[in-house]
């Protein structure tokens, strides 16, 4: 025993051990003020989109838009909507002088996979902002994660009322419109086209977006005199809807409302047309199909079947304002075809985030959030204490308000119709009406949005 334990040996080990214990404290750098504070000359953004599953098409287009946005922010390409954006804070030299880099991930349209992917972006790649999502379920899940982790979440294509309703979070922001707005814009057009004594049958994607979409369009059409015969939920992963279509033939419904999106809608609409629903006469009226949320990608997927079918959309590439034209031009130059509404909202969200950071002068999520929805501007013609936030223009939707009360954007909504005589494979939808923002406005405490709480912003670390 004494042979091994000498005074000298003890001191030696003590010193070495002490040094070993001290090493971590020497090397762990100064604590950051917030999660993933960008160090060095670059800043990393995380683009989390579905690359597989029913929304893969939308995801691919979103990714293209993000890459374009990064180019424009870094001063490459033609600048796109940076030139038409009402805020001139961005200079085309990155964000706050830092070059923008990005990482991508596959959400698989599953909350679990999306969260894992977002976590790896935050923990491994040091992303300071996460954006994307083509499913509201995923958006809600990732938004919750970003709130916990202390980074900003800029929602991509998410249309559920819940994203900025009962599941809203202080660190989450949405530019896209929502189910309520779709219903409010679409219902008057439907009533004008099809009359006020219709009987509607709903097929609904069985998740948060489908539920709120169904609720919204049901409320809006019923207010105009329509009757709801039945509402049926279909699984998100379903690819064949025949078994859901046949029961419709047994009812006296004369309108089918497809609360489906992406691949779901393409399949259910194709099935419905195959079963001859569109040629049917019920109650002496022509049977009609309505798709509340429309996109060009879906129209292309469904081909011939979309002709004459009404729906609503956030943005369409045929719009003739300066912002839209600039965006379509740079997107078309790079990829050879016009962007979808998913691409548009993702591009805009990236620009809005960069602009907010620039104006705030910091990447701190709390400061950025303040800049994104701060300010006292308001939309004309709406008398409400909630009509307050950050007002901008030139990003393709005309004047838009980022409302401070729930981090939701308010802007005009487009009602579109499948074109009868398309001139090209991209020219599939025509804009029937641009519903003014005043008509789709709602108060933050609207029952369809109630129950949530923004909480306070979290900067993490």
């Amino acid at each position: 025993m004494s042979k091994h334990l000498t005074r000298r040996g003890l001191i030696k080990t003590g010193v070495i051990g002490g040094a070993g214990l001290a090493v971590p404290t020497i090397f762990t750098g100064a604590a950051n003020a917030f999660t993933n504070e960008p160090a060095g000359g670059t800043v990393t953004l995380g683009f989390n989109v579905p690359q597989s599953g029913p929304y893969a098409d939308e995801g691919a287009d979103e990714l293209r838009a993000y890459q374009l946005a990064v180019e424009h922010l870094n001063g490459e390409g033609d600048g796109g909507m940076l030139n038409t954006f009402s805020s001139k804070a961005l200079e085309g030299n990155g964000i706050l002088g830092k070059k923008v880099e990005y990482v991508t991930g596959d959400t698989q349209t599953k909350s679990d996979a999306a969260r894992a992917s977002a976590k790896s972006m935050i923990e491994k790649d040091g992303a300071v902002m996460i954006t994307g999502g083509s499913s509201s379920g995923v958006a809600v899940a990732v938004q919750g994660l970003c709130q916990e982790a202390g980074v900003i979440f800029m929602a991509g294509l998410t249309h559920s009322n819940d994203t900025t309703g009962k599941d809203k979070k202080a660190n989450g922001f949405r530019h896209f419109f929502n189910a309520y707005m779709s219903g409010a814009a679409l219902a008057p057009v439907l009533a004008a086209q099809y009359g006020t004594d219709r009987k509607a049958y709903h097929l609904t994607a069985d998740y948060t977006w489908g539920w709120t979409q169904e609720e919204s369009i049901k409320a809006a059409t019923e207010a105009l005199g329509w009757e709801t015969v039945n509402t049926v939920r279909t699984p998100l992963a379903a690819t064949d809807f025949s078994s859901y279509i046949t029961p419709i033939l047994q009812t006296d419904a004369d309108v089918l409302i497809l609360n489906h999106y992406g691949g779901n809608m393409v399949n259910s609409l194709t099935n419905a047309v195959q079963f001859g629903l569109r040629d049917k006469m019920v109650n002496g009226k022509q049977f009609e199909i309505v798709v509340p949320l429309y996109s060009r990608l879906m129209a292309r997927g469904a081909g011939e079947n979309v002709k004459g079918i009404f729906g609503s959309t956030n943005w369409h590439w045929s719009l003739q304002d300066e912002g839209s034209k600039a965006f379509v031009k740079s997107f078309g130059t790079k990829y050879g075809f016009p962007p979808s509404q998913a691409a548009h909202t993702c591009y805009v969200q990236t620009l809005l985030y960069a602009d907010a950071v620039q104006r705030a002068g910091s990447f701190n999520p709390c400061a950025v959030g303040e800049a994104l929805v701060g300010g006292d501007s308001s939309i004309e013609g709406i008398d409400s204490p909630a009509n307050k936030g950050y007002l901008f223009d030139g990003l393709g939707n005309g004047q838009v308000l980022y409302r401070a009360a729930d981090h939701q954007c308010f802007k005009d909504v487009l009602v579109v119709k499948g074109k009868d005589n398309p001139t090209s494979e991209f020219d599939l939808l025509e804009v029937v009406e641009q519903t003014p923002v005043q008509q789709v406005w709602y108060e933050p405490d609207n029952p369809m949005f109630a129950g949530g709480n923004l909480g306070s912003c979290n900067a993490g670390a």
Partner: protein
Amino acid sequence: MLGLKKKDLTLLGVVAALVIFAPFILNPFPADSAMAQFNAGYPDLMQRFVIFGIFAIGFNILFGLTGYLSFGHAAFLGVGSYSAVWMFKLLSMNVIPAIILAVIISGLFAMLIGFISLRRSGIYFSILTLAFAQMSFNLAYSVLTPITNGETGLQLTLEDPRVLGETATSSGGIPVTNFFGLEMRATETLNLGGWSFQFNAGYYLCALIMMIAFYISIRIFRSPFGLMLRAVKSNQTRLNYTGLNTRPYTLAAFVISGMYAGLAGGLMASMDPLAGAERMQWTASGEVVLMTILGGAGTLIGPVLGAGFIKYFENIFSKINENVLHQWFHALPDGIETPLVWVAEHFVGSGWHLTLGLLFMLVVTFLPGGLVEGGQRIGRLVRRRGESKKATQSTPAE
């Protein structure tokens, strides 16, 4: 020691060393190098490694020992997750009650499903478990929406009661999961030169629990009970003819295995308080079968290796995009680069399934015993070479 033979003790020691030093082992490349893409040493993935390790260890107790191929094990994982999240919502954010409830509920659930499914064996058993799992998935997905919140997944909100905790923190956020005050997300970062190693509290809790789970699994493998389960695998009919009722043994194995899955589910929820229905989908059940077979069914360490292998691919390969590929190959002339990137991009990003499928095929064809067999073969090769070297070395005369 610990009632283990020397060989098992060494194995336990090796696994312990691997999980303790995982933050170093999994981060071999400096953070700003081009190879950093392949680093896996960040908390979320390390947690997944050990959690799915637990899941696969449990599955192996059933499949590896008794040969009963359950195709519905993800259901227990999901049940465990839901129980844990409900515990966070109702009781407190401490992970211990959540994990305990997860294990108990999934054990009861396994008892119920096992009691019915184990009346049949072979393919009929597999189909029955698959049917039950799919039923649970559909229940969670739409029918039981008030309990499971459907497709969106069960999440914590600012309105949860949390009897033994606070509903919201003083700053207005949702409190985080903790182990008697130690936050699961607490991470200490050690920057050594260009490397940055992350030590996460949640990971080490999971690692500790996995070591316990692994130890219990070794004890089961070496026990008379384990021997009986192996006998069931080799010839159940003969056992029945000798007058033995095998049902209690197989049921016990099924329940233990289900509890392991529930434990894994509870831990997943503890690390990230969200439970989604897709955790119970049949693809998730298939994944654990893949993990076990890929690593080596019936071996102790195999399932853990398989779990790590699959999770690595899922999380690392899926994040390589076209842009990254262009960076790798940018030294090549355009004529070669573009087709090379075109080919490669089908195997990374969303195409990671393809790469995994190819590797799985290769492993099953050439290494039927899984990765463990590969390791053994290499080991034998090295030993044989060592021996032959020894043989040629003539010992000099004294």
